């Protein structure tokens, strides 16, 4: 099962120690065959809404803490509990913050609506 883990906000500005620990964690997840892709996200989001055939593009609003790192990891685990466990390990390193985990339908899952 694939899951997208996203951090939506983090309280701590990463220091060297956190970066090193996170690097080790990411390496460990890759070696465990769990991590498919990961990356940091620019907090300056561009929002797009579509309504009545009209598409509106707006920049921002930007989060207050510009230095806070938000990011994502696409992981492949056997159960949701494993994804949750990995997420716990992540937050033990990352400190305070919030995020979401959502299942991503992979090639083995039936197409939604099919």
């Amino acid at each position, binding site marked *: 099962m694939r899951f997208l883990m996203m951090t939506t906000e983090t309280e701590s500005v990463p220091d060297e120690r956190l970066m090193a620990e996170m690097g080790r964690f990411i390496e460990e997840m890759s070696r465990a065959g769990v991590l498919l892709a990961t990356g940091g996200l620019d907090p300056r989001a561009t929002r797009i809404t579509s309504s009545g055939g009209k598409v509106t593009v707006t920049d921002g609003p930007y989060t207050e803490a510009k230095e806070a790192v938000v990011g994502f990891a696409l992981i492949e685990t056997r159960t949701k509990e494993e994804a949750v466990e990995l997420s716990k390990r992540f937050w033990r390193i990352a400190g305070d913050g919030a995020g979401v985990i959502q299942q991503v339908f992979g090639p083995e899952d039936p*197409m939604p609506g099919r």
Partner: protein
Amino acid sequence: MTASDPRRETHRDAHSDAHGAIDAVWRMEAARIIAGLARMVHDIGLAEELAQDALVAALEQWPESGTPDNPGAWLMAVAKRRAVDRIRRQQRLERKLEEIGHGLEDEDPAPEFDAVLDTDPIEDDLLRLVFTACHPVLSAQARAALTLRLLGGLTTEEIARAFLVPEATVAQRIVRAKRTLAEAGVPFEVPEGAERADRLASVLEVVYLIFNEGYAASGGTSWMRVDLCQEALRLGRVLAGLAPQEPEVHGLVALMEIQASRTRARTGPSGEPVRILDQNRGLWDRLLIRRGFAALLRAEKLGAPPGPYVLQAAIAACHAQARTAEETDWARIAALYELLVRLTPSPVVELNRAVALGMAYGPARGLEVVDALGSEPALKDYHLLPSVRGDLLARLGRLDEARTEFERAASLTRNLPERTLLLSRAAACTPS
């Protein structure tokens, strides 16, 4: 339930939550724990038993005390303590026996085992565990069951369901495999030198067997079998991390990643198989393809002459690279099959080469190779031989012969949608 159903928001039952979490931790950590213990006790059966003891302790304690901060380390510590206890008991017993026999011999009871307690890289132990579980002294089926059990943390029941065999069969396979390893005195080590290549082939064979068991999915409910594909992929990726200098490991990973990328496209709406050339390439998983290419590149960078998995991955990559079926580089595929058939001579590979040649240089060229295979006893009842021959003949306009071949192919396959397809191709060869 709709998305706004408040029941979804409520906290889940704490008890089942704890068990789910323990289960997850176990699956994630079992291999490392068993591997670490196996180095101490030199017996993977005993190592698994001790690891299971630690799991039982976790099931008893965690629901009350909460999951520890580092659950893997907790399990490892408990299991190692039990291993040391067990070894000390054993040594005391042996010393007693020795004292009775030879008189006193003063020796520190367990220096070796205390030394093991500090952290030797667990990756080395994991690699030893892979090589031991996949030792050629065991049958391929036994190796697969043991690997899924020890390295995948799967239960006997899950393995049985995946392989469509009774649970008792798998249980017995595993018990016998452990006994065979113990009796053969298989050392817990990574083979070196001349032995290594053969032993690695034995490991890769098992991983690919697990993958194909899921990929073929010829019967039964498919969800658990799809899980097998994923488990094989995971094992392959882990192995690539443990033995990064082995091109064939990356080759196998590349092959599996690229094959798995087609999962969604390779069956039609009613479950019928769809040939690669007819697949909707938009359904191919780009992420897995990209990972497959990356793995293939890693293999090629190591500079060794390509082995069978690297070659098969390179062939899979040719298909993955073509945006449409017409763009497929058949000449390259034919050349790769030629290299493959030299490394692993097999009539099935030769038949594939014939298909590629027929696509690259015209049906007559393919037919030459197919006809040379005509007397091959291994292909006597293989429906793809007359099917391929029929296709080549039809393209040459030799319709009567083509029809006979398609009919023969239809009579040899037990797969109903495939038979229907072959019969319709036979009918199409009848001049109107």
